[in-house]
Structures are given as C-alpha cells and as structure tokens.
C-alpha cells in the first residue's frame, strides 16, 4: 500500500473527527460520542446539548470513522463472497440474492472471482480475512480445506468442518425430471454427465443413478455423454450431442446437465434434422432467464438461485451474529417447469400435422389479452 500523494490528500474534502466536534461544542469527546451514537449513556444529556452537538456535527461534516469503530468493537459487518465467476447467469443470480439479504441486515460484502485458479483461491481466503470479513460464502467453488472463518458453500458437497453446504435436493430434481419422461413413455433416455470441475456433477449423477433404479429406467452406457470443461456457452453440450447423433444409438430423450448444455444439444439435434420435441425430448437444469424463450421453450428443473443466495446469507449471518448452531447442510427443493421441449416419443406424424394449428392456437391464446 503506497501512501497517497499529498496533492490527492488535499483534493479530498476532509471530514471532521469526533475530537474536532467535541472541541467546537466545548464538551468531552465521550459525551459527543454518546449522543452521536445514541448510546444509553446519552439519556443523561439534556436535549438542548444534544441538539447543539448534532448541529455542530452537521456543520463540520462529521462522519463516524468506520474503521476506528470496527477496530474498537471488533466487528466489520462485512462478509467475503468467493465465486468462480461473476458475469455468468448462475453466479450473478446467487450473488443478487446474497446482496438482497445482506442489505436487510445492514451487512456488506466483498466479492472475488477465482476463475478456477486454485492458487488464487487460497490467497483470497487470507486476503479477505485480513480485510476483516466475518465469514465467507463460496459460490460453485471447491474448498481446499477448512476455511479460517464461518463459511457457507452454495452447491457445496464435501462435508467440511464448520462449513454449511447449501445444496439442491438432487434426488428430488432427478425424480421430477425422470418421472416426467417416463410418464410420457420414454425408455431410451440419454444422460449428460457434468464436468468434474462443476461442483454439482457428482451429486447429480449419483441421484440420477439412484432414481433411475427406482423408476426402472435402464441407463445405457452408450447413451451417457461426459461433458468436458466448463464452457459457459452452448458449446458445452454441442459436441457431445453431435457425437450421440453420429453414434446412431436410438434414443428418444436427453436429460442435459444444465440449460446451457441443453441449448447446445438442441442446436446439434436440429442441425442433424431431428426435431425437438417431435424426435427427441430435452430436459434442462437451472431454468436460466432465457430458458423460456428458446425455440422450443425448455422444459427444465428450476434451481431457485436467488433464493439460494438469500438462504446462504441468512445462514451465515445467523452463525456470525446469533452464534446459531452449525448446520452441515441446508437442502433446497427444486421445481419442475414443463415447457415445450418434451413430448411423448414416436409422435412425429401426429405432431407434424398438428404443428401449424398448435402454433395458431398459441398465437390466438397469446394475443387475446392484448387485443381485447
């Protein structure tokens, strides 16, 4: 930290210290402090004096020094948010939820993005700690060990001492998606396995295997697609889906790893002349903002990302402020959103003949409220 140049110091309008205010009103700094912080001790100060102090503080542009106060009360009311990325749909919604909750409790947060750099991640913990944060929330980030402060991990799966994991109920999610496909008559279902770098991959896959067994769905090894990397664009699913089509193994539905990979898959299917959902049904995961606006609109498992951020923030603040008992895991219920990317298999003929009237019907339905 380089000291700022003198010139810059002059340029900034100084705010008065507590001492200066006290001198101005000719009282002790502690009396002034009691009044300005509205502490119980201020009750003994006459209203007239209080008014004088407040007026002087205003006139002198007194601003309580947050750092001096933090040092004294050993609190910073700040937490650190460690995310893999900030600009993507997943993290930005989660962080939006965190912010919303912290605001209510008058907490602040510092955000850092490690972009999968392990070394950076380790540095961040101590850097944030030095800055006085009182706890961490990690977003889609695999922790290397027990962090030095109370921590809540969003989509954390490893049990780590003192870390609360916020996890989606993946069994429920898999059940909702697979039950929907089975209900529609799908048997040959292709699955996409997430990259090992994504914190949900393993958990989600285990849930799929478990639920498949219950629903008597045969998971065919030739219909399992392993995603590589964590490309946040539809390129994520595209090559895998292309390969699947090229392999010529028959399938009627795909449960994609997430919405982004579902989008890439749909593109690959459509380019190969396969209609979605006439030839292949596709189920996504996440329900990102644009999922409802794809062609076709995506059937998907919704993760309430913003709510997950809020819940994480609440869990952390309760630990920090109320010394609440440590909870190892908070499970979040997913929702299932049925849109147009899924349909019963082998209905191509029927679908084509009714496609036009379907669209027409939709158009009529949609336009009704606006036009009358």
């Amino acid at each position, binding site marked *: *930290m380089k000291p700022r140049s003198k010139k810059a110091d002059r*340029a900034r309008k100084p705010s008065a210290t507590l001492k200066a205010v006290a001198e101005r009103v000719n009282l002790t700094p502690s009396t002034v402090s009691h009044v300005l912080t509205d502490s119980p001790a201020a009750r003994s100060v006459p209203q007239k004096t209080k008014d004088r102090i407040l007026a002087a503080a205003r006139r002198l542009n007194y601003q309580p020094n947050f750092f001096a106060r933090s040092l004294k009360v050993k609190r910073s009311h700040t937490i650190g948010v460690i995310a893999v990325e900030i600009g993507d749909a997943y993290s*930005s919604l989660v*962080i939006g939820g965190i912010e919303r909750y912290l605001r209510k409790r008058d907490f602040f947060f510092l955000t850092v993005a490690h972009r999968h750099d392990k070394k950076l991640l380790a540095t961040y913990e101590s850097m944030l700690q030095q800055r006085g944060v009182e706890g961490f929330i990690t977003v889609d980030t695999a922790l290397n060990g027990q962090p*030095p*402060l109370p921590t809540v991990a969003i989509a954390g799966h490893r049990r780590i001492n003192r870390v609360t994991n916020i996890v989606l109920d993946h069994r429920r999610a898999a059940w909702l998606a697979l039950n929907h496909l089975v209900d529609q008559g799908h048997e040959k279902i292709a699955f996409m396995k997430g990259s090992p770098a994504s914190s949900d991959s393993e958990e989600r896959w285990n849930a799929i295997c478990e639920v498949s067994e219950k629903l008597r769905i045969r998971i065919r090894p030739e219909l399992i697609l392993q995603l590589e990397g964590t490309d946040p664009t539809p390129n994520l699913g595209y090559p895998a889906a292309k390969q699947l089509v090229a392999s010529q193994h028959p399938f009627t539905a795909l449960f994609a790893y997430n919405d982004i990979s579902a989008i890439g898959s749909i593109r690959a299917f459509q380019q190969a002349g396969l209609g979605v959902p006439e030839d292949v049904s596709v189920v996504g995961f996440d329900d990102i903002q644009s999922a409802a*606006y794809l062609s076709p609109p995506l059937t998907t498992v919704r993760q309430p990302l913003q709510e997950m951020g809020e819940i994480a923030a609440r869990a952390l603040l309760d630990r920090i402020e109320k010394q609440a008992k440590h909870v190892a895991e908070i499970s979040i219920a997913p929702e299932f959103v049925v849109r147009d990317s899924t349909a019963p298999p082998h209905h191509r003929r029927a679908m084509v003949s009714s496609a036009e009237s379907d*669209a027409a019907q939709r158009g009529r339905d*949609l336009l009704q409220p606006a036009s009358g």
Partner: protein
Amino acid sequence: MANRNKHNPPVTLKAVAKHLGLTPGTVSSVLNNSPACRSVPGHTRNRIFAAARELDYKPNFLARALRVKRTNTIGVIAAEIGDPYGSLVISGIERYLREKDFFYLTMVHRHENELLECYSRLLLERGVEGLITIDTSIARPLPLPAVAVAGRRTVEGVTNIIIDHRTAVLDALQHLIELGHRDIAFMKGPETSSDAEDRWNCILGVARELDICIRPELIVEMDDPEGRAVLTPENSYPFAMELLGRRRPFTALFAYNDNSAIAAVRVFQDAGLRVPKDVSVIGFDDIQAATYTSPTLTTVRQPLKKMGEIAASTLLDRIADRGEYVREIAIEPQFVVRQSTGPARTHRLRPTRSRSRPGRFPASSAP
C-alpha cells in the same frame, strides 16, 4: 476481526515483538519495510520474518487503513446484479481491481432512487476511495471520485463511460435499410434506464438522415408503471404483445436490448410469424443469451466486461491522482450480424392464417 471466533485469535504485532524480545517499533519497521529498518541488522530482520511466519502474523488491515488513510476499496452501486448487463460490467471491474490489489463493496438499488443517496453515504462511511455506478443516474456531485457506466448526466467530478450511441444506431438502421426495410418498429427503453434517452435521440437523428419515417404507432415505450422496470424477457413480453396487438404492418423491429428482442422473437414466433422471414429483429448489448435463441440474435455489442475494466482503471487513476479528469469516455460498439435479420418481406403474410387471428399484421407491408 477473527477474535470473535474461538479459533485462531489473530497474532498481533505486539505478540511477535514479545516473542522476539524486540520493540514493536522495530518489528513493524521491518515487516513494513519502512526506511527505519535500514538500521536493523540483516540477521535480526531474518529472525523477525521467521517469527512472523511461524506465528502466522497477519497485519491488521483495519488498523493499517486507519493509519495510512487508505483502504484500497471502492464502492460499486448497480441497478441490478443478477442481470446479464450488470453482472458482466461488474465482472470486468473485478478483473481489473484484482490486478491492482483493490477490493470493492457492491450495493444494488433496483431502481429505488431514494436508496442511491443513502448508499453512497454508507459506502463513504466504510472508507471507499471512489465509486463506480452502473446504470444509475447520479443527480448530484459526490464527495469522492466517481465513474458512471452508462451515465447520462454531466455531473462535476463524475466520468461517464458511454457507448457511442450514434455509431450503434447508425450501424443497426443502415443494416436494415440495406436489407430493404422501411417499416421499422421500435421498442423504446424506460426512463429509468440510463441509456434510454440518449439512444432514442440518436435513433431520431439517424432516422432523419437515412430518411426513415418513424411512426408513432410502431413505437412501444417500455415504461413500467412503478418506474423501476428491470428489462428481463418476462417484463418485456407484454410490450412486444402490445406492438403486435396494434396490427400495424412492419417488417423489422429494433428492440431496446437483447432481453426485449428475445421476448419479441418469442411473441412473433408464437403468433406464427417467422423470424427473419416475416420480421427481422435487432437487439442491443450482445448478452450471452443472444446466441442461445433460434434464430440467434443480430445485435449491437457493448463490450460490457471491457467497459467495467475501463471504468475501474479510470477510477483508480483518479484515486492515485494520475491523469486528467475527463467527463466522458466513449466506447465503440460493434455490430454483430447473426440470424435474426434478413431481407424485408415482399410476400404477403399467408392470409388463411392471418385472417382469423386477432393481432396479425395486415397482409401488406405497404403503408
């Protein structure tokens, strides 16, 4: 701060000094590499470093901040963080600050304007050394250096980072003209969005130059009754419906942003119209989702991450007293042609489908 936790009470400078049998002043001068430490012998210095490592001494940031009056922290005030616009700009800010060892505190006002004043005060109390606002209109000078991403007003001491709207609009409208479009509809941004006014004025100016007639019946203003519209596809949807519901012929739409363009494409397709065969659509921003839709979106790219980086570097330069204060930094947009624009239709929309359907275009594109 950590000493509220039962574990790892932080090791103070005093403790390190005591451990070594030296004065805190000596230890401090060595650990901070201050000029005074030159008089400390090399082996003592090494002992101090070894002890600091061994005891896991970490300098108290707050104490230091109080002393040197520097926090290396800035405040970021954004309209929204969960949306593609705000999050990409913030991502760019973060990337730059990281390199410079700066941190930032984020506050989101969701277009509740009364919060803005309160937020800048709160951030000031926390010792931020400067502010970046995103899609937020600053009405009054702020007591510290500030940079506004998409700032539209000229406020003393605030540097506005803005996209060159004229170029952006010119590229988009020229593209449509070359494709033969004359009947162009517009979705106009809400007042709360910083860019709305500027962009609209540019549209009016450029349209005059290109001899495009802007018809009131082809303009939808996306004004939220509560005055704090966040332009998600969901919120834009009714406005696209409204446009279609007017049953006025048009062959192209220039939407306010990608989200509203995405909503419009959906509305058009649901009504049986093909994009771009029956209607061309242009967005603005080039968010990630612009490539998710089918057809993929022709749009004006704002380099949002880069705008965040530029905002951060401008602010840090001002904080460090480097470089002159500039009122405005214009960012070049980039026009991206994808699949949602094509030649203006010369065909009549199929009458069998349009006749019975409310809200369809009249069959002809002629005025």
